[in-house]
Every structure is written in structure tokens, then in C-alpha cells.
């Protein structure tokens, strides 16, 4: 079983469009969208849900006004400024700021604070024209994306074993924080999609350092490489120095947006220079995870 994760540090470099193309090209795989915060892969793959499960995680404090004696200890102890004192003297919890730490619940002398679990999102096992897909939707503004990512990874693995598939291909989140760290666990190869811009380069360096930190092997794709040849050369130099194989240099092409509008992978459209390069890139990726 191999796990390949497509990430980028910077958003908007082309992760999801490329993941969809690789999903088209790859065989015997489970697809997984680990960008649970703002998932987009389903827009291209049109998954049909086979199963839908609620994702419950974490808790939230809620003050029972009938029991509360308005002593204010909860407000004093809350490190997140989530307990609000109102003009009439009553207290309430701002759910957006509540961290779910249970400190107020434990210390309330009147046992006036409830601590219900939170329904943070939904997750799905689906079928697509490219095979099985595991994905989710975190409700807007919710936390616990790291836990949901870990859960999806586990489910994708289970599904791959059940169906005798030997590859998990995942689309990741931007950034280098909680959900990305969670998505790296157990990954055989992180494919980093960058672009020849100062921010693309900067964010590549940080996400590559993150992979090094967690000892995950990396490969790099320079997308829209023809936008700035100087930056591209500089990124290639950086990758040589760090021993990150550059597995693809893909041209800037509006056909990516056309494919998106038609809800297709770019490799499903008529052959272009870009689609040929994507095929070569995928072959190189597969050589790195034999």
C-alpha cells in the first residue's frame, strides 16, 4: 500500500486540478480529499455517496442560566475570552471562542455548565468515474480539522484493504498547520505543487521543511513554470541543493480553467502539451513509490 499526498503550502497553485488528472491516470486506487476545510475535488469527480456519516468531535461549554449563580469564576478562568458577562449580570459562552477545554465546567461551584459534544461535519464514502473516494465536509467555522483528516486517512486505508487497492491518492490542504501535519502521517510521498512566484517559492520552502521535519519524502512540481523563467530556475536550484526531485514542469494554460468549468480532469479533454506533461509527471511520481 502506498500513500501519495498532493500539497503546496500556498493555496491556488493547482493541487486539486492536478490531483484530478492523476486520479484519471492512476490505477487501483482510493481517492481522498484531505482539504476538509474547503474541499474542491468533488467538483471535478462528481462523487455519488455510498455512505454518509456524522463527524462528532470536541465539546462546547453552555451555561445553564437557571442553575448559574453568576459568580463569574468561569469568566476569570477562561483563557480564550469565551465567557461573556452581560450588562444584566448573566454570563454566556461565545461558541466561536470556546476551545472546549472543560476548565469552566470542572471548576463551576454550582455545576451550572453543560458540555455537549459537537457535530462538526459529515464524511462520505463515494464512487466516482475514477474509483472510490473518501471525503468530508467540515461545517464552516468548525475546529478539529486535524482529527477529521486522521479519520479520513484511516477510512481510506480500510477501504483500500477491503477492495484490494494498493494506492491512496490524496489532495491536501494549503498551509503547514494542523490539517496538513495530520495528512502527512503515514504518507510515502508528498508531491509539492509550487509556482514561480515569490510566494510560491517561499511557501514551498516552508512546506518542504515540514515534510523534512516529519521525515516524509518529497517531490516537486513547478506549475505555470513559464510565467517567470528566473524564478523557475531558482526553484530548480533550490530543489537540486535539497535533493527534492522535480518531477514536472507544467506550462501556464487556460485549459485548466476550461476543464474546471466542464467539471472534468484536464487529461480528459483533447490532448494538449499540458496533458502530455502531466502524464510524464505521473509516471515519474510512480517511479518514486515503486
Amino acid at each position: 500500500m502506498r500513500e501519495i499526498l498532493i500539497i503546496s503550502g500556498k493555496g491556488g497553485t493547482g493541487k486539486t486540478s492536478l490531483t484530478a488528472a492523476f486520479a484519471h491516470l492512476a490505477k487501483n486506487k482510493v481517492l481522498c480529499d484531505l482539504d476538509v476545510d474547503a474541499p474542491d475535488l468533488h467538483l471535478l469527480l462528481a462523487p455519488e455517496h455510498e455512505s454518509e456519516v456524522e463527524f462528532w468531535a470536541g465539546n462546547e461549554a453552555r451555561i445553564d442560566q437557571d442553575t448559574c449563580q453568576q459568580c463569574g469564576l468561569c469568566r476569570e478562568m477562561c483563557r480564550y475570552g469565551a465567557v461573556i458577562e452581560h450588562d444584566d449580570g448573566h454570563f454566556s459562552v461565545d461558541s466561536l471562542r470556546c476551545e472546549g477545554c472543560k476548565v469552566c465546567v470542572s471548576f463551576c461551584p454550582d455545576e451550572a455548565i453543560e458540555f455537549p459534544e459537537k457535530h462538526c461535519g459529515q464524511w462520505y464514502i463515494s464512487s466516482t468515474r475514477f474509483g472510490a473516494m473518501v471525503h468530508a465536509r467540515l461545517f464552516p467555522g468548525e475546529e478539529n480539522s486535524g482529527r477529521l483528516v486522521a479519520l479520513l486517512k484511516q477510512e481510506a486505508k480500510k477501504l483500500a484493504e477491503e477492495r484490494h487497492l494498493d494506492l491512496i491518492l490524496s489532495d491536501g490542504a494549503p498551509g503547514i498547520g494542523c490539517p496538513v501535519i495530520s495528512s502527512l502521517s503515514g504518507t510515502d510521498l508528498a508531491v509539492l505543487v509550487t509556482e514561480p512566484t515569490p510566494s510560491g517559492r517561499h511557501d514551498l520552502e516552508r512546506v518542504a521543511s515540514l515534510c523534512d521535519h516529519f521525515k516524509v519524502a518529497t517531490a516537486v512540481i513547478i506549475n505555470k513554470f513559464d510565467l517567470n523563467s528566473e524564478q523557475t530556475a531558482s526553484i530548480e536550484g533550490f530543489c537540486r541543493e535539497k535533493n527534492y526531485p522535480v518531477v514536472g514542469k507544467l506550462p501556464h494554460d487556460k485549459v485548466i480553467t476550461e476543464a474546471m468549468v466542464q467539471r472534468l480532469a484536464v487529461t480528459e479533454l483533447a490532448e494538449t502539451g499540458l496533458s502530455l506533461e502531466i502524464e510524464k509527471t505521473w509516471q515519474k511520481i510512480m517511479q518514486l513509490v515503486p
Partner: protein
Amino acid sequence: MIVTVASGKGGTGKTTVTASLATIWQSKLLTVDLDVEEPNLHLFLHPEIETTSTAEMEIPVLDLSKCSLCGKCAELCQFKAITMMGKFLMTFPDMCHGCGGCLAICPDGALSPGRRELGEIIRGRAGKADFIMGRIRIGEAMTPPLMNIIKDEVAATIRENPMDVLIDAPPGVSCPAVTSVIDSDVIVLVTDSTPFGFHDFVLAWEAFSPFGKPMGVVINRAGLGASEIYRFCADKSLPVLAEIPYDRAIAEAYSKGQVITTVSENLRELFVTLKQQIENLAAGAGQEADHA
């Protein structure tokens, strides 16, 4: 006035819009990069750095010689940062959310406050504006604590010396994005009109509209993709404050680290007008704004 530039999808142009607004802002301004995972604003504003400091948060340090293994701390901790393993108590400082509950509940005085490094806070000046950014330590999973420290610094700065604040937010719609917009006066959502851009824009609208703050939209790479975005904005009475045309010259300027107001006088004018629109929105006149 605190203005936050946010988006659901990454790469729609948040930093482009923030940097461009910063260069045409006439009144006193503090620019803030709250995308602490991948801060980019400095790559375009080229601030002169004045101070760099380390940001930390409190975590528990265990003195086993004082611990009676009562397990109260492990029972309270919701984040698996303290766990009883048979006859041992173990702390996992990376998992700690800094709630302070374990320190308060320990009857033995066996836990004392220690520190975990979150990252750096960098301050300086970019042109006429003050500049502050955070950069999370590689491997640190939690970004809101660092973001909150920066927000506290911003609040202290403007208390002492009132000025406008312009925040470049991280992408997404979960806790880091919410942390950036929650205390602002105006939210500017940057999107492109591609299917991905539109889909994530709707998520951002769902996440941020419950705050009841004035919100307006900047459509980047206008003309690329579909028109459903305009229908959505009209339906929700969301004013379209500006449209940045799709233009390879803009992408190339960006790739060279240039602020796009330098590309043409028209683009400069676009951001001057955008700033005016944002002020109108803040003043409650936003309902009049229209993309026509």
C-alpha cells in the same frame, strides 16, 4: 477601522489585494499578516524589519517527585496532552492548548508553567505603514494561539496610537480564518469566478455571515470561469466592491514580487476606489454599492 481580507480558497488574491490597498492607503495604517502558516505579504511590501521576537504559550511541566498520581489533570485534559499510563503520568506538550486547567486542578503542586515556542513575531515599517507578521514554527500544529498574540499586539498598538488596520487572513473557513475575521469591522472576501473559487467563496460566506459584519466582495481574474458568482452576490445583497480583470501582465508582475498597482494607472485607480468602497461599507453605506 479594522479591515480583514479573507477568502475560502487559497490563491485567489488576498495578498495581492492587501498589498495593493496598503500602497494606496493615505491615512495612518498598520498592515498585519495573520497567515502565520504561509505569510506572504512581506514578499510584496518589503518591510524594513525593526524587531523579531519569539512567541510562546504556557504548557505544564511535571515534577514527578511531587505527583501523587491522582489523575485529576489527565481526566480534565481534553487534548490528550496529559495521560495516565498505568502507574505513570506523561505530558505531551505539543498537544497542549494552554487552557491552564491542569495547573489549576493539581492538588500536589506537581505541575508548573513551562513554555512552548509557537513561532516568531516580526515588526517593522513598510513605506508609511506599520507592519506586523507572525510565522509559525515548522511542526507547530496550532495557529490560533500565535494569531491571538499578534491580535493582542495590534489591539494594544491602536489603543495607544489610533490608526486603520489591514489584515491579510489565512485561507479556509475553519478556526484560523475565523480567528482573523472575528474582531474586524469590515470583511473583504476575495474570490475568482472559477468553479473552485465560487464553491469556496460560498463556504466563506456561510462561515462569516453569522458575525453580522459588513462584508464586500472583490472578484479577481474576472471573466475567467462562470457568472454564478454575480447572481449569488445579488441574491445575498453582497456588494461587489471591485473586479480585477484577468490579465497575464498582472500574473507576471506578481511573479516578480511587484505590487500590481504599479502595473497600470487603471489598476491603481481601481484600488483607490476599492478603499473608498470599503470605507462606505464600514460607514453603513454599503447597501448602495453595486457591481454595475
